[in-house]
């Protein structure tokens, strides 16, 4: 006997199994077709249905039945074409007829592994809970004991140092007629140090980002430096940089990143003799907070002409960056030799620092770096960081929150008296809920010399649609409806690089005001309050205890 499965649609998913369900209004829809055309996932499609209509027009009930063929917009119940909730359909709809709605009862993860392929995506950890950073408050406010500073009147120096700083008793200085002078004969190596803005744009590659997005960020950064006098810097991400930028005077605002795939470095190394400025720094990527221990991957459909040229690879092939640097087998080799090699390439004039994912082993790396006179800092990326492509399980379940990891590292440096020698850069979830200035200030007070942002700037500068409810998060597919993480010209031409740049400038100018609004009442303005942990309280005793700050309720 034939199973009933085919007949009653058993083994098919109900719309209730999907994370987003389309709410479409028959009455309001003008059937213009814009929504179905724009949907990046083909989750909705025009369909025709036969409808039976019963009408009765006379005084007495005399129902007549007619059958009509009508066009509708229908959600597809194919897991491969699930609605991501991006709401581009609503954006283009002229009559507010369609809107995806989040379905908290969805069973998406039970089904999104067809063909034995685990679910892969871009974006961030799907955890909408507020992070530790958002549970911290600034509670040491000066009023009568210390007249609070005026954020609008006083001069603030919101700057930090990127680079290794010599301890005072090792400085090559000598006393000459009552004045201190540099002792040029001492032979002491003075590591390069840059004075930068304490919020930097973290590593997002050309490739992961569309050309328009990357260009917009780069223009914004340049404007901030050249016009606004704010030394904001940006890391290239793995994948090289445009040759024209490498040869320009603006290179000093950028931090080229080298990662395990070494993509783009043929071009960078070849350009070194032609560089008229040194880069701000070099970042060596060993790990990423969103997918610790996992490598990078630029999928073939994103490797188009421009990317293949910058990265020096053929078009249309997957570009995997291995989880580790394949030529290195130990922490000494992986870290020390690479730092030295990169330093040497620029004549030891450029700070070189590694970036790792936050983990319980962070301190081992930290202590290795403390003993390496060429290490310029350590960038630690927490689990709330974003990524262009990763396995869902890596993003959701692997990694370590940044707050306690950073705090442990800072206190370890304090114990060794080296907290001012090796700057820590913290990232991963900074501004997760939009509180960029507060999150950044908290991390600084926990011990970070600087923080790095990624998702926040994508959302603020280019209206990225992603969120922790798995909205959109299709960066890996090259289908980014905003044109941020795609290499498809049809999509990225939607994004105006000038608008992105403008927003980058607005974001940094406003966060600068907000930082002053935090630091002023706390009486800090001359130096960044790195490690000023008495200024912070947590609303949870366990968090307070772990971070060694006070608990306030």
């Amino acid at each position, binding site marked *: 006997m034939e199973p009933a499965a085919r007949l009653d649609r058993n083994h098919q998913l109900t719309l209730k199994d999907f994370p987003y369900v389309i709410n479409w209004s028959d009455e309001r829809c003008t059937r213009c077709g814009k929504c179905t055309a724009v949907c990046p996932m083909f989750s909705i499609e025009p369909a025709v249905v036969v409808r039976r209509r019963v009408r009765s027009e006379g005084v007495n009930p005399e129902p007549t039945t007619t059958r009509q063929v009508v066009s509708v917009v229908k959600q597809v119940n194919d897991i491969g074409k699930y609605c991501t909730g991006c709401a581009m359909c609503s954006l283009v709809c002229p009559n507010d007829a369609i809107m995806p709605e989040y379905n908290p009862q969805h069973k998406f993860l039970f089904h999104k592994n067809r063909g034995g392929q685990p679910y892969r995506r871009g974006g961030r950890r799907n955890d909408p809970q507020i992070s530790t950073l958002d549970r911290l408050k600034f509670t040491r406010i000066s009023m009568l004991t*210390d007249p609070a500073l005026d954020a609008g009147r006083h001069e603030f120096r919101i700057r930090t140092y990127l680079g290794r*700083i010599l301890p005072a008793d090792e400085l090559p200085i000598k006393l000459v007629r009552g004045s201190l002078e*540099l002792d040029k004969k001492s032979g002491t190596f003075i590591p390069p140090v840059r004075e930068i803005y304490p919020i930097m744009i973290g590593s997002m590659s050309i490739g992961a980002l569309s050309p328009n997005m990357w260009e917009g960020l780069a223009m914004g950064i340049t404007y901030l430096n050249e016009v606004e006098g704010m030394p904001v810097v940006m890391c290239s991400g793995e994948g090289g940089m445009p040759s024209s930028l490498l040869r320009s005077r603006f290179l000093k605002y950028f931090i080229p990143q080298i990662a395990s795939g070494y993509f783009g470095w043929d071009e960078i190394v070849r350009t070194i003799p032609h560089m008229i400025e040194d880069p701000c720094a070099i970042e060596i990527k060993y790990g990423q907070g969103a997918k610790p221990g996992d490598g990078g991957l630029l999928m073939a459909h994103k490797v188009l002409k421009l990317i293949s040229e910058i990265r020096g690879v053929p078009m249309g092939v997957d570009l995997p960056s291995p989880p580790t640097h394949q030529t290195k087998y130990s922490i000494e080799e992986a870290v020390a030799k690479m730092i030295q090699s990169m330093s040497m390439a620029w004549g030891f004039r450029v700070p070189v620092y590694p970036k790792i994912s936050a983990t319980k082993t962070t301190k081992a790396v930290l202590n290795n770096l403390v003993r390496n006179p060429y290490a310029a800092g350590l960038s630690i990326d927490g689990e709330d960081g974003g990524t262009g492509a990763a396995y869902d399980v890596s993003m959701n379940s692997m990694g370590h929150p940044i707050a306690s990891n950073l705090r442990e590292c800072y206190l370890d440096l304090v114990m060794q008296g080296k907290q001012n020698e090796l700057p820590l850069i913290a990232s991963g979830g900074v501004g997760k809920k939009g509180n960029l200035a507060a999150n950044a200030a908290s991390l600084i007070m926990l011990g970070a010399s600087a923080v790095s942002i990624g998702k926040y700037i994508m959302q603020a500068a280019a209206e990225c649609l992603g969120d922790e409810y798995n909205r959109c998060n299709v960066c890996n597919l090259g289908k980014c409806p905003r044109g941020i993480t795609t290499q498809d010209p049809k999509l990225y031409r939607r994004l105006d690089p000038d608008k992105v740049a403008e927003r980058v400038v607005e974001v940094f100018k406003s966060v600068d005001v907000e930082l002053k609004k935090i630091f002023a009442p706390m009486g*800090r303005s001359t*130096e960044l309050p*790195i490690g000023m942990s*008495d200024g912070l309280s947590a609303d949870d005793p366990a968090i307070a205890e772990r971070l060694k700050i006070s608990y306030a309720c």
Partner: protein
Amino acid sequence: MCRLAAITSEKYFSPMENITALETMKEGHDGSGMGLILKNLGGEFKDLKEYPVLSGISSNTGIDTINDHMDSAGFKLKHSWSPKIRPVKGIERHDNYFARVYDYPDKYKGRSFEEKEQLLLKTRVELRKTGEREGSVTVFSFYPDVLTLKEVGDPLQLGEFFSLDKSDLKAKIIFAQGRQNTNYAINLYACHPFFIQGYGAMVNGENTAFIPIKEYLMGRGLPGYIGYNSDSEVFAHILHYSCRHLKYPLTYYKDIITPLKASEIETRKDSQAARLLKMSLRPLCIDGPNCVMGFTPDGTTFMAQDAKKLRPGVVGGVKGKFALMSEECGLDSAVAKRDKSKDIFPMKYDMVIIEPEAREVKVWNQLQGWTATTS
């Protein structure tokens, strides 16, 4: 709030002069405590200048602790001074207030002064730890020619309590501060001025950068950078660290606590060194509001302000006697007959430095160097 009264003179004078000055500034402090440091001692200490003086407070059993400890360390008691206590309502009397002069252990007789200083510091820290454990001993200083007296209460009443008006206790440099530190727990160790190995400082104002500064100092691995019951103790230790440990001239103290902007540093002759210094000592930057007064082992005294908020502070006097005060009325009390037009109110870049024996007053400006001299 706090009020500060420091006097430096070529002649010995009584600490009552400082206390009277504090009294004139009473509207500016809440009378919750007073600390006194006397340097270049006169009176009965005049001929004992080469011997270290242990100053502190103890219970009756604490005296035995001190004796045991000093005996076992090899110190020999040479002279002992205690203030004559007059009961004053509201001041809770401790058993013993003392300034005991010791001779060095025999094995230190031929050693350098630096080695002796290290021994004194080590001994003071050990006594302090023992005393804190037992709750029986509080030691403020152990150093030649320096005496410290501290207690909770109103300064004028404390002057009466210690009978300072009738005492022959005198010195050429006396620092006094009115007010216990009330940001933290009331604790005798939280009372200004603070002292370490010849360097002393007292401060008016809260220290908003206390924790990073404290953590940095504690990480230097130097003995004596402990305690921090007051957020202001770090000012004395920064002074000690920069002048004694790093051997920087005194003027660099100002560059450390109130670093210049990068563009300002470029204008200095020592810009290369100053730039490095600023980065390396970044955690020692204060953010005010602070007026700092201090002295160094040679008897130089100084006043410096934070870079922007400023606490009240004025320096004035005549050759042979200058006073560093929080307020003009304190100055009028200490040195009434002076040319007031020459009073100096240090501003954000300034450090007023008074030579030993109150020979002359100079103003160091971070941007312009020496700008004014009064003698």
